């Protein structure tokens, strides 16, 4: 039971919820850039929240279906089709042997998620199927490489499912203005009041320098009174301010430790939102209370049935 990769596309990787419990030896978490789209794809199919999927960036992927199953597509609209018939994201679709699932190019948003009923059966490395190319870990060959032509993406046979779709209020508008909630922390005290107010009142632009490690923004430079700091652990969503004053939001494949001053962290829910935005997108920051962010996240975890993440003891 498999999909056969005809064209792997520009950047298609296997992702599950992430690789936990290995940051102390420098192994990052990985995981879906857009967690919201990822969680909905699994939910549409009744999968466990952490079932492995494909993360398709920009597009150009095509797959041949070898046995019938049901798929879900969420996230960015990358011009997907089944046998040439255009399909929309945020729906599930039955597919039959011989069907061709194809993605063209990004129409709206940047990344799409493709889930299969029951989850893909990808190999796991250190407890996760997530691909981290920099670390040469995860993926179909456990070497951190993206998909290649001829790869087989295995899944278990299932009964066809009825069509399901994501209610419209949960579908984000990737064209809407975006403001990211920031929990101040780390070295925020090393930024003067004037620098802090500059940061929260300026409009930044997503640069061309974006990948799974982080998003570099450009705009009004902000400066810390510190040149560098003693390297320390980096949270998901941390905003690093290097000497040039241009913020970098650190995302799923971020390095585990770093020595640049940080002004705080973008909330996890907002870090997922920025990952659908491409170069040129205007971004603003707003202060977010940590307790409010915690409450938001707990409600979100409950909604998606996110369970315990058991880290290995070592």
């Amino acid at each position: 039971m498999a999909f056969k990769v005809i064209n792997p596309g520009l950047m298609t990787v296997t992702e599950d919820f992430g690789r936990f419990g290995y940051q102390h030896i420098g192994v990052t978490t990985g995981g879906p850039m857009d967690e919201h789209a990822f969680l909905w794809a699994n939910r549409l199919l009744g999968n466990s929240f952490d079932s492995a999927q494909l993360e398709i960036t920009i597009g150009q992927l095509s797959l041949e279906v070898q046995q019938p199953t049901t798929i879900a597509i969420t996230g960015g609209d990358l011009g997907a089709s089944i046998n040439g018939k255009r399909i929309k994201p945020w729906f599930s679709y039955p597919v039959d042997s011989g069907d061709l699932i194809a993605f063209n190019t990004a129409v709206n948003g940047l990344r799409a998620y493709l889930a299969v009923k029951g989850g893909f059966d990808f190999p796991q490395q250190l407890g996760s199927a997530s691909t981290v190319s920099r670390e040469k870990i995860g993926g179909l060959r456990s070497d951190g490489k993206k998909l290649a032509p001829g790869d087989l993406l295995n899944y278990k046979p299932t009964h066809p499912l009825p069509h399901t779709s994501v209610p419209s209020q949960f579908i984000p508008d990737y064209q809407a203005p975006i403001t990211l909630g920031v929990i101040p922390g780390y070295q925020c005290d090393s930024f003067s009041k004037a620098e802090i107010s500059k940061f929260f009142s300026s409009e930044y632009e997503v640069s061309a320098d974006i990948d799974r490690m982080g998003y570099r923004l450009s705009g009004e430079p902000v400066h810390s009174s510190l040149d560098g700091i003693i390297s320390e652990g980096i949270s998901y969503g941390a905003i690093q301010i290097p000497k040039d004053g241009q913020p970098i939001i650190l995302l799923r494949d971020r390095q585990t430790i770093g020595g640049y001053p940080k002004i705080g962290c973008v909330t996890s829910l907002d870090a997922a939102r920025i990952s659908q935005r491409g170069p040129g997108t205007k971004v603003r920051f707003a202060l977010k209370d940590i307790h409010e962010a915690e409450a938001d996240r707990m409600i979100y975890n409950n909604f998606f049935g996110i369970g315990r993440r058991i880290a290995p003891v070592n």
Partner: protein
Amino acid sequence: MKIQPLSEDSLIVYMGDGIDRLVARKVKAATYRIRQDLFSYVVDIIPSYNSIHLTYDLTQADFFWFHSQLRGLLADIDGMTFSDQKGAVIEIPVYYGDEVALDIADIVERCHLSRDEIVTIHSQQLYTVYAIGFSPGFAYLGNTDQRIAMPRKNTPRLRVPAGSLGIADTQTAIYPSDSPGGWQILGRTPIELLDFQKSSLTPMDMGDLVKFVEIDRKEYLSLGGRL
């Protein structure tokens, strides 16, 4: 000790200022306690130099509960004295020969010392693991003798071979896998320092003590070293 919240599910504990081996020992001790007592709530832990970064599981613990547990667990750690007594030492064999010491000519020139003097200074000392990061298994060890302190290369190498031993400023480290890098290379170990198939993954942990043991070409090759 200072606990600072960072995000919905992460915080950092600062345990001292500066790069100091006694602070590193305190971090190691606190990390051990957290692993013992709070492991079912902790998703990830990153000890580094003078801090411990923790990600906790929001489905098991909330901000107030986790912070109070942590404060209780570490309450007495500031008052504890961490002596410089030597614990277990991890010995890593290193071949310092010219064919693997890619930057030895530069190092000799910069230090105004002979190759043998550099090797003796580098290998006679005990190092502390201050942090692990940059890439999986990459351990920052310090501090080297000031006489062999070395700035990074102006142009980083695109590929540093796995096992290479480098120096940058007063820190020294082994590249566990082939990767780009700008440290000055003065030798290579035949030992596999990162093995995703092994349960230990990497022999070094933050706060451990490490010593480099010089081996010759024949030993290097017999231990599986590649040239």
